């Protein structure tokens, strides 16, 4: 909650700042104390909170499904196996529906993308101040940090680094399979010889290049934009709680409504990311003309 010492804009700014580790201007390494310091760190800095949350969530995900896979059996499934099979069946159906080639990578890739992004997005439904307050408590009492310098963004998918990281990973696979399936010549030909024929190569390359580049950019920005906007609305609703009883009760109603609606969004965004990845890889596997 916004305390007396914090203005609303401070509160918002605090919530939108990552906990960044990098090299300070004076050459020492450490955590940035505010947004300006974080910006000054340049490219070689790490968002500790985003990275930590993604690794934690990915680790939990893999641990859970690995524990199911270890004792999986073909007889009557029970408990966790039921759930895991349901998820895997759903993803397998999606892959089979959109991907026409044969590639052992695509289904596990889709599985990882969908569930990992879903878990990241799911962090949005945690009470907005819960994890940051815990982080602040640990930061001040264990590491002796300034409470105002303990930033913590809980939802990794509101960090463009994370979404771009995944989108570039997918993009690398698109390039890899395009070249592997069509050969270097085929891939370049696809970029330059269509849609207008070989006499309009620059125009073709412009169009197809934009088409190609837009794939990872749109993947990353769509997820980031949706989650960032959702997070922002949660923050704005949270501000209402400190603005008197009427606003607080209105805020409570909005909070519930938005959270319920957000359940749809987080699932949908994870699903869109997965489906588009499958579709892009399917396109990479196919000869167009």
């Amino acid at each position, binding site marked *: 909650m916004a305390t007396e010492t914090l203005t609303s804009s401070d509160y918002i700014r605090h919530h939108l700042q990552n906990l960044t580790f990098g090299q300070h201007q004076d050459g020492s390494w450490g955590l940035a104390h505010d947004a300006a310091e974080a910006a000054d760190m340049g490219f070689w800095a790490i968002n500790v909170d985003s990275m930590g949350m993604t690794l934690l969530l990915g680790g939990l995900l893999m641990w859970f499904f690995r524990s199911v896979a270890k004792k999986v059996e073909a007889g009557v499934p029970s408990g966790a196996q039921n759930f895991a099979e349901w998820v895997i069946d759903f993803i397998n159906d999606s892959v089979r529906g959109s991907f026409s080639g044969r590639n052992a990578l695509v289904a596990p890739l889709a599985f990882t993308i969908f569930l990992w992004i879903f878990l990241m997005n799911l962090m949005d439904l945690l009470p907005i101040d819960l994890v940051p307050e815990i982080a602040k408590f640990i930061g001040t009492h264990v590491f002796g940090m300034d409470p105002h310098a303990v930033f913590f963004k809980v939802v990794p998918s509101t960090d463009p680094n994370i979404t771009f*990281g995944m989108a570039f990973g997918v993009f690398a696979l698109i390039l890899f399979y395009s070249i592997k399936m069509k050969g270097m010549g085929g891939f370049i030909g696809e970029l330059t010889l269509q849609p207008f024929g070989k006499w309009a190569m620059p125009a073709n390359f412009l169009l197809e290049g934009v088409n190609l580049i837009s794939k990872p950019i749109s993947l990353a920005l769509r997820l980031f934009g949706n989650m960032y906007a959702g997070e922002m609305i949660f923050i704005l609703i949270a501000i209402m709680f400190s603005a008197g009883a009427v606003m607080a009760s209105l805020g409570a109603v909005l909070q519930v409504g938005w959270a319920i609606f957000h359940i749809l969004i987080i699932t949908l965004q994870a699903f869109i990311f997965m489906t588009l990845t499958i579709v892009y890889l399917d396109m990479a596997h196919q000869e167009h003309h």
Partner: protein
Amino acid sequence: MNLNATIIGQMIAFALFVAFCMKYVWPPIMAALEERTKKIADGLAAAERGKHEQELAEKRAQQVIHEAKDQANEIISQANRRGNEIVDESKDNARVEGERILNSAKAEIEQEANRAKDELRSQVGSVAMAGAAKVLSREIDDKAHTDLLEELVSQI
């Protein structure tokens, strides 16, 4: 929200998780799912086969029952026919026997009658002889008249 090395960290993490999933998570679960699918398909096929066999068996049973009924009908009609035959035979036998008894009775009667006639004949002869002898005893030669009378008797 600056773009920084987190991108690279996330790409590495992404690659590692996907590789882990591809190697240790997806294949065993998929294998189990496929094995179950196969099991279910086999089970359904077996059920179908069983059903088919049951239908065949039912058909066979119907056929057997049908044949048995036909046989039973034939046996019954045969028995009826045989019964009628026996009755007819008995009737014939009875008639033949009756005729035989009748004939033998007739023959006996005839025999009896013949014997009675013979006896009568012989007795008529001797009675006539005795009467004639009594009437004519005085003057008639017994022997000559006996010959005459016997001639007379044989003509009766």
